[in-house]
């Protein structure tokens, strides 16, 4: 039998029993409004559930009864014995049908027209006692007939995925039978909670007693205490069991969800559920329901490909989502796996840079898994791939937070083209956990055992180096099996620096290595005691803001102790989503270009600090012999490819040595050279520039390869060479004075694009957002072309171009997309959205060529 139906039957039987009592009460006090409302509600619920379960006969009877009750409640009728009799007759019929349902799982056949007519009569106010009494017994006790068989609808829902849920459908079926047979009783959750609290206290008291007994050699006590201990354990287990529910309760809705999802997305999805009878604490179950639903939805939406894509990839058309639950050492493991495309690493990397969560260098040093884990980062929405199904504000960060809140962890593994697996590890119960007791600054603390990986005994200044705490500029780290483990001293973190601090610097220390997400972290403590079963109690409301603690508890010796929250410690220590790589990442910068990196040319000119310029702007690097630099008409020039090229020296850029390094910038046959002291390197770096307008020739400062670096303003230096650089270009250009609008959220790129475009003879206007651009449009400003960034906050380039193409005075303008990447797919996506062309950021020539072509087209047409 369907377990929904079983629930319904249990509930309805109870309701019916209540109804009998209530109706009799009503007959005695016909004006009791509260009783009437209660009766109406009960019948209404039965009717409503019938409709939901597809029980038409029951629904019709209940509906007729409800009509009468509604009138009674609204005081359009008064409760005469005749009416009550009619209603009671209706209830008897409902009981008979429910009885039949319980036996066969199907509504018994029968004719209710007479009864319904009587009820309708009553509702219309024409009830006579005899008329209502007549239709009472005839059809009700009829044996359940099979031929009519209005099969309950919900049975069809799981049946739609028959292969999908063998275990799931089998387990509840067994559980459902006794539920109807009356072998279960319903107990309020609060009663169970209270029992649980009592048992928790009992466990604590038992622990206390055991501790006492250990210190006092009393043989007489030992035996009964042992017994008490055993019974307490059994009791604890028994009470826990009352709170346990199979995980299928949380999975019930998923087959339906997946079915709807596959229709909505036109994908073929198979849902496989393994271990549906794995039991876990009711409280935990409630808390993981939503995250699980969200993740399954995500897998179906983002993870699995369309049938066509799957076929192209050589997979079967039907995508598979596998849910697997099992016990593992006091924990429950739930795996949600799909065999889809895997996480898009490139997209995630781009997003990380975009949101400034890590620098290029940090990213380069990260493992794939570390990058993937960014999807758990708060606010890390994969907004560009939001569909109606996913991305409705419940991000993976919320999932992670929810799981961490119940002391669980979430891991993910993703292989491109093969799928993604999320592994959730949660404690069996929230009430009692195993914890490691440590001491720091004279105070004891508990660390939940679930997050403890290992204990290391370290000695500051130990000679062998293996287990010594070393310091990088006062920051302690530990060498642990070829890795550097970031350390936090609990004393410092909790500001427990008492008189012990100075002494303990030399003393041996213990390091508790804890796992927080994908990061490991060492917590330095003074002493490590035992592990103990503790009952987690929430801290007082006035202490809730202390995120380092997840609760408090009473130890076996009766003292109160705070429970440390490893997540909170990691956050306080600055080890968050970016992970340990931030701590370890050296100056090494990988030159491989990916994501939103920009190639920067590093050079020096006056002073030791490096300067940088985007490599895309530099035409060539030259090394000119000193003697080839001549003085002409008040400026330095050199003969360069048959022409005279003006040279401009940056401060300290002119060297006295034999040869002079020159950066050549050129444009339409004109070139200028910027003399610099030394060309250092070319690195790929993320550009986040702090602009400063204080010094001419410098756009601002950025961190490149780990060093603060001045980024020079090419526009300034060009005018140093040719005062008329911009004007001159204007004169000679065929596209003279074409107005170009630049939409770019990065101030740096704006500053760079405007001079570049101006230099090429355009009149460039730059705005910082799509919204600002639209304002210009609405103000009636005219342009001949638009150059727009793709990735911008609020409204991205794609949305912007769609808005423009949709109408308005700019709808026919050529639009060029600027983006960090221009793979074939990206170009395709760009053109689909309505861009005329798609150019990689900093491909200066490409941009100018594209602009020329775009502007030439209308002329040619």
């Amino acid at each position: 039998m369907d377990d929904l139906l079983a629930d319904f039957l249990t509930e309805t039987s109870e309701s019916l029993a209540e109804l009998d009592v209530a109706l009799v009460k009503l007959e005695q006090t016909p004006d009791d409004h509260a009783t009437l409302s209660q009766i109406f509600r009960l019948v209404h619920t039965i009717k409503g559930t019938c409709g939901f379960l597809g029980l038409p006969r029951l629904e019709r009877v209940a509906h007729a009864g409800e009509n009468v009750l509604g009138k009674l409640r609204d005081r359009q009728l008064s409760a005469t014995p005749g009416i009550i009799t009619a209603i009671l007759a209706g209830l008897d019929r409902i009981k008979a049908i429910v009885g039949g349902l319980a036996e066969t799982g199907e509504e018994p056949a029968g004719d209710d027209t007479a009864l319904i007519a009587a009820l309708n009569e009553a509702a219309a106010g024409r009830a006579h006692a005899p008329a209502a009494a007549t239709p009472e017994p005839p059809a009700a006790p009829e044996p359940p007939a099979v031929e009519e068989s209005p099969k309950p609808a919900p049975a069809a829902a799981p049946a739609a995925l028959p292969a999908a849920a063998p275990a799931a459908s089998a387990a509840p079926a067994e559980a459902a039978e006794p539920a109807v047979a009356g072998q279960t009783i319903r107990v309020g959750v609060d009663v169970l909670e209270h029992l649980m609290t009592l048992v928790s206290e009992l466990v604590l008291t038992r622990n206390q007693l055991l501790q006492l007994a250990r210190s006092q050699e009393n043989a007489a006590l030992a035996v009964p205490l042992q017994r008490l201990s055993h019974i307490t354990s059994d009791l604890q287990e028994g009470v826990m069991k009352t709170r346990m529910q199979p995980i299928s309760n949380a999975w019930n809705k998923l087959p339906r969800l997946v079915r709807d999802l596959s229709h909505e997305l036109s994908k073929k999805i198979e849902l496989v559920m393994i271990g549906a009878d794995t039991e876990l604490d009711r409280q935990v179950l409630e808390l993981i329901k939503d995250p699980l639903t969200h993740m399954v939805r995500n897998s179906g939406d983002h993870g699995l490909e369309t049938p066509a894509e799957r076929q192209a990839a050589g997979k079967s058309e039907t995508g598979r989502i596998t849910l697997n639950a099992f016990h593992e050492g006091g924990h429950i493991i739930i795996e949600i796996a799909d065999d889809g495309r895997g996480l898009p690493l490139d997209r995630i990397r781009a997003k990380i840079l975009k949101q400034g969560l890590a620098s290029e260098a940090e990213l380069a040093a990260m493992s794939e898994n570390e990058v993937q884990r960014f999807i758990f980062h708060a606010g890390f929405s994969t907004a560009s791939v939001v569909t109606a199904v996913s991305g409705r504000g419940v991000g993976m960060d919320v999932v992670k937070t929810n799981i961490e809140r119940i002391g669980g962890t979430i891991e993910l593994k993703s292989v491109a083209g093969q799928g993604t697996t999320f592994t959730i590890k949660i404690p069996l119960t929230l009430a009692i956990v195993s914890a490691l007791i440590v001491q720091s600054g004279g105070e004891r603390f508990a660390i939940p055992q679930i997050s403890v990986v290992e204990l290391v005994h370290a000695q500051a200044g130990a000679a062998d180096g293996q287990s010594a705490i070393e310091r990088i500029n006062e920051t302690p780290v530990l060498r642990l099996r070829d890795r550097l483990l970031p350390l936090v001293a609990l004393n410092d973190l909790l500001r427990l620096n008492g008189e012990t601090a100075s002494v303990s610097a030399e003393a041996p220390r213990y390091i508790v290595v804890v796992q927080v997400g994908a990061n490991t972290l060492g917590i330095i403590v003074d002493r490590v005691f035992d592990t103990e079963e503790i009952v987690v109690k929430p801290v007082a409301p006035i202490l809730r803001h202390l995120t380092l603690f997840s609760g408090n508890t009473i130890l076996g010796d009766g003292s109160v102790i705070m429970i440390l929250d490893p997540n909170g410690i990691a956050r306080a220590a600055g080890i968050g989503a970016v992970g340990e790589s931030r701590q370890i990442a050296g100056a090494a910068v990988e030159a491989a270009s990916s994501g939103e990196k920009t190639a920067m040319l590093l050079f020096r000119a006056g002073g030791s600090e490096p300067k940088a310029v985007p490599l895309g702007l530099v035409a060539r690097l030259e090394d000119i012999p000193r003697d080839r630099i001549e003085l002409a008409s008040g400026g330095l020039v050199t003969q360069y490819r048959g022409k005279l090229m003006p040279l401009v020296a940056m401060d300290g850029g002119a060297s006295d040595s034999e040869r002079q390094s020159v950066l050549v910038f050129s444009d339409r046959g004109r070139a200028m050279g910027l003399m610099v002291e030394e060309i250092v390197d070319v690195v790929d770096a993320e550009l986040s520039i702090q602009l400063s307008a204080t010094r001419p020739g410098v756009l601002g400062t950025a961190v490149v390869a780990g060093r603060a670096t001045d980024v020079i303003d090419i526009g300034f230096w060009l005018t140093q060479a040719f005062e008329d650089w911009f004007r001159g270009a204007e004169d000679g250009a065929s596209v003279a004075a074409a107005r170009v609008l630049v939409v770019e959220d990065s101030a740096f790129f704006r500053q760079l694009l405007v001079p570049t475009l101006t230099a090429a003879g355009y009149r460039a206007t730059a705005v910082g957002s799509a919204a600002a651009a639209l304002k210009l449009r609405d103000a009636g400003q005219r342009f001949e072309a638009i150059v727009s960034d793709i990735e911008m906050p609020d409204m991205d380039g794609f949305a912007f171009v769609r808005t423009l193409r949709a109408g308005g005075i700019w709808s026919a303008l050529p639009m060029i997309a600027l983006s960090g990447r221009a793979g074939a797919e990206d170009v395709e996506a760009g053109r689909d959205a309505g861009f005329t062309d798609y150019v990689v950021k900093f491909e200066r020539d490409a941009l100018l060529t594209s602009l020329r072509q775009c502007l030439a087209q209308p002329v040619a047409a």
Partner: protein
Amino acid sequence: MTQAVLERPTHAAGGVARPAETAGEEEAVFVTLTLADQLCGVPVLSVRDILGQQSITRIPLAPPEIAGSLNLRGRIVTAIDLRQRLRLPPAPPDTVPMSVVAEQRGELYALLVDQVSEVLSLPASSFERNPPTLPPVWAAHSAGIYRLKERLMVVLDVARLLAITADRP
């Protein structure tokens, strides 16, 4: 006026009998306590327990008023240092603090004081509102003043004493 010295913790407010001879006039019953030589009173109905010296677990990073937490028959009670709360100087080292346990929204709090003395039943006629010149810290946590024969008793407002916000310096 009757006095009853508390020998051992009273469990509930009902444990303290109202004196019989004060018929007629409306009276209120207070547990009196001393804080830096100032006599204070807490309505007896808001007192759950009176405790002698307890071992208190410090809570790192907590606001300074919070002395720590203690175990009261299996329940964890947050201890509030009333001297800190009322910006009084720390108690001299030889004082053995006692505490008055109060309940607020299901949570127990122990108010650490220098000394808990007696339970007084006071007539409403000797009640006065706070004089306007009372220092702000006291005015903020006092519900009024009782005139006793020899001294004045400040009525502490437990709810306001417990309204500790995290951002207080």
